């Protein structure tokens, strides 16, 4: 009876050390809703107890049912037949169970049937589910389209869409990408127009739409004829009906359970979400925080699953008269995997809490504004948290997705030839991991998104403070390594800025972002190490490895090889 929440000691550690006070305080607003809903918490401790109990349900369903079905879901995949999409049998069963457990509206308001949980807890659920079946996360995670409707839609629109998503009757899709608008969403063409009564309609094609067969769709469309950039785009919501044709589904490397659809909208009636022209610049920008955190959590879930399989196999497999677990090279690989996972988890939930508090502050400011009360204090906080979220979200997505690929790859390697065979799960994890550094913004785009804040050194005060702190538990020597990494970072940053070459800055951004990441995660792990002796090993290995990598990053910034770009045609011819 594996429970993917309770059996994960590191996740337990993270959960037990969460401080969600401010988040819960805003979300529960004096615990008013306890008067109307018998499942609403009566105080902070009760809320935490609720989160724990519900994550136990998620862990139970994931470990005992979803994981059991994952291989057959992968084998069977979603199927397209006669214009319709059919989930794999296991996927359908999974979705039914998740809906029965009330988990399809985790962070949505209670009045629409949701649980009103903090985003952070919902991210934990995503990680747990992804460990069991990465492809299920895509459908589970699309409950987020209701979050966009909740934040920016009218009351009528909320009533129209959110309750059925919470109950699991409807699943969602986020239709942004088009054949000529992938990373560059400003190029979206799908046409939105109004009839004389003001009713909106959608016409055009969307591609690579995860769960495009879902019943509730959020669609980015060009509502302003003649425009060519992001300012001509608006966000729409519509129900699936006969005007929407699924033209095909993709035959993919991994996440087979998740149907990836090409959709054709033939004058589909739609509702405008929020204000015209704000589709990309405001609403997509906002939903990307959640979408990217979701993918980061998915990547971590896959990494955890891959590591568990590798560990199990290494203990069982005997070569040269002993379990390969005891062969130093393998042991070392396993430790690397484990340390990466724990470092990644620290980063993920630190970032999730920032996004969480950002959302809650936005909510609070909205309420204060409506009540005509002052909100300048909250606004200052929000600006700060927004900056941090803007940096940490792409950082987490980049680091965790790349790391999941490496971990899944190493997990397969530990299996040897066996891992290459379909009978074992290792190859599935590798295939599933491969999408995480592509969708919801490629790794290269995450670096672009994070780099501005790195070049502005936005965490400078924060690191100053950390350097001055007296650490307990014998981790003090590690601080000096982090100080050294920071020196390297500052030196590299100066080098890049002084070069005043935008093209060089773009190329160097990867190394700069990574350097900044070591510092941020390094200090997170030091905090953890103060609380738990075992974590000293984790912090030690992470920081020492990071120091070595930092030197490589610096070398790669300064080695001058960038100039090769000038000779690209020659080299590539």
């Amino acid at each position, binding site marked *: 009876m594996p429970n993917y929440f309770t059996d994960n000691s590191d996740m337990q550690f993270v959960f037990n050390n969460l401080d969600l006070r401010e988040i819960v305080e805003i979300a529960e607003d004096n615990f008013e809703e306890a008067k109307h809903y018998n499942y609403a918490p009566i105080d902070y401790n009760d809320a935490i107890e609720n989160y724990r*109990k*519900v994550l136990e349900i998620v862990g139970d369903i994931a470990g005992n049912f979803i994981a059991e079905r994952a291989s057959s879901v992968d084998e069977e995949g979603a199927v397209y037949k006669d214009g319709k999409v059919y989930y794999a049998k296991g996927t359908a069963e999974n979705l039914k169970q998740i809906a029965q*457990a009330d988990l399809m509206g985790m962070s949505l308001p209670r009045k629409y049937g949701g649980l009103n949980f903090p985003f952070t807890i919902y991210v934990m659920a995503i990680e747990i589910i992804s460990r069991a079946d990465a492809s299920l996360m895509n459908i589970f995670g699309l409950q987020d389209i209701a979050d966009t409707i909740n934040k920016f839609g009218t009351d009528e629109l909320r009533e129209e869409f959110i309750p059925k998503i919470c109950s699991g009757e409807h699943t969602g899709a986020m239709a942004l990408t088009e054949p000529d608008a992938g990373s560059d969403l400003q190029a979206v063409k799908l046409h939105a127009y109004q009839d004389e009564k003001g009713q909106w309609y959608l016409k055009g094609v969307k591609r690579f739409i995860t769960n495009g067969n879902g019943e509730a769709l959020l669609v980015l469309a060009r509502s302003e004829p003649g425009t060519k950039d992001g300012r001509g785009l608006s966000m729409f919501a519509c129900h699936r009906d006969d005007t929407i044709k699924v033209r095909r589904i993709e035959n993919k490397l991994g996440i087979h359970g998740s149907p990836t659809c090409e959709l054709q909208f033939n004058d589909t009636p739609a509702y405008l979400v929020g204000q015209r022209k704000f589709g990309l610049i405001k609403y997509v920008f906002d939903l990307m925080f959640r979408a990217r955190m979701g993918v980061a959590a998915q990547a971590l879930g896959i990494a955890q699953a891959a590591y568990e399989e590798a560990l199990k196999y290494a203990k069982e497999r005997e070569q040269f008269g002993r379990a390969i677990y005891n062969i130093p090279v393998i042991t070392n690989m396993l430790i690397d995997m484990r340390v990466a996972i724990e470092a990644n988890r620290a980063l993920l939930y630190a970032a999730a809490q920032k996004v969480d508090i950002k959302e809650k502050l936005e909510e609070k400011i909205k309420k204060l504004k409506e009540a005509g009360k002052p909100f300048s204090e909250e606004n200052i906080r929000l600006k700060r948290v927004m900056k941090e979220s803007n940096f940490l979200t792409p950082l987490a997505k980049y680091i965790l997705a790349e790391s999941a690929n490496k971990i899944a790859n190493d997990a397969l390697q530990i299996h040897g030839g066996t891992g290459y065979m379909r009978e074992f799960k290792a190859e599935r994890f590798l295939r599933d991991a491969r999408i995480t550094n592509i969708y919801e913004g490629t790794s290269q785009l995450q670096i672009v998104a994070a780099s501005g804040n790195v070049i502005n050194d936005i965490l400078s005060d924060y690191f100053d403070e950390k350097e001055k702190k007296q650490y307990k538990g014998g981790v003090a020597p590690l601080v000096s390594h982090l100080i050294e990494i920071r020196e390297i970072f500052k030196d590299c940053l100066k080098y890049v800025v002084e070069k005043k070459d935008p093209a060089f800055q773009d190329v160097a951004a990867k190394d700069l972002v990574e350097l900044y990441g070591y510092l941020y995660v390094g200090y997170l792990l030091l905090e953890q190490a103060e609380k738990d002796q075992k974590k000293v090993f984790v912090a030690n290995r992470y920081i020492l490895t990071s120091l070595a990598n930092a030197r490589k990053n610096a070398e790669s910034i300064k080695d001058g090889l960038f100039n090769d770009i000038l000779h690209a045609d020659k080299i590539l011819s």
Partner: protein
Amino acid sequence: MYNSIVMVKQVPDTANISGKVMKDDGTVNRAKLPAIFNHEDKVALELALQVKERYGGKVTAITMGPPRASDILRECLYMGADEAYLISDRKFAGADTLATSYVLSEAIKKIGDYHFVFAGRQAIDGDTAQVGPQTAEKLNIPQITYTEEIIEVSDNKIKAKRKIDGGYEVVESTLPVLLTVLKDVVSPRPFSAKRVMAYKNAKSLIDLEKLTEENSLLYIDKLVHEYEERGLFIKTLTMDDLQLDEQRCGIKGSPTKVYKVESVVLGGTDHIRIEPTKNGIGELIDKLMKDHIFG
């Protein structure tokens, strides 16, 4: 609208035995085993909840057991039961199937207003499969054992499929009726997050009495009232509440005496080849007789 009462049992987790669970005398050391919800009873509850979804009505879960059995009653509430009863008394201890079915049938009479009584076919600790049928007899109602599917309920009648050797049969019965169900017929639903949050603090009378023992500032009546108000009270029935004949309860009311429990470990390591001849078969039969497997 059809009301169901579901008999559930907390059992030692015999599937997860590790280390010193067996005592030296070969009996089970229950304190060392985690206590779980008997799976077939969970299936029975699922079936009852499906009846409620199809036809409306109320689902009541009952269990006879020690105070900690309220754990599985909370789980029943998490799955969707409307009400739960703990039937508990020191004098119920040591009950065999006869004494158990006596207590349960009296509790069911007391609760009343039911159309169905559901139970798992058997519990994994005793594996007798007797409590369901005996309870039906004592309630003087028909029973459908080994139920696989409820086909239809209408006009105060039920049509159901029951498993028999090599197939199934479709039977009909008047209501009320007792059904025992098999483990694979439906998959029990997961706990509902909302119900877990709502009922995580549900407590039985005995749980509350314990609280008052630990904290002298609390008064039991007030506490019960408060828990009732919040819908968190697990009703509790004792021997006195049910006005039972003490001689028929617990160890006193249990004619079954366990003579000896033996842990049999099959020690065979080799295959024995038997020639397919009359002589070969004869030798095999002789061997089986000698080992007391036959005869």
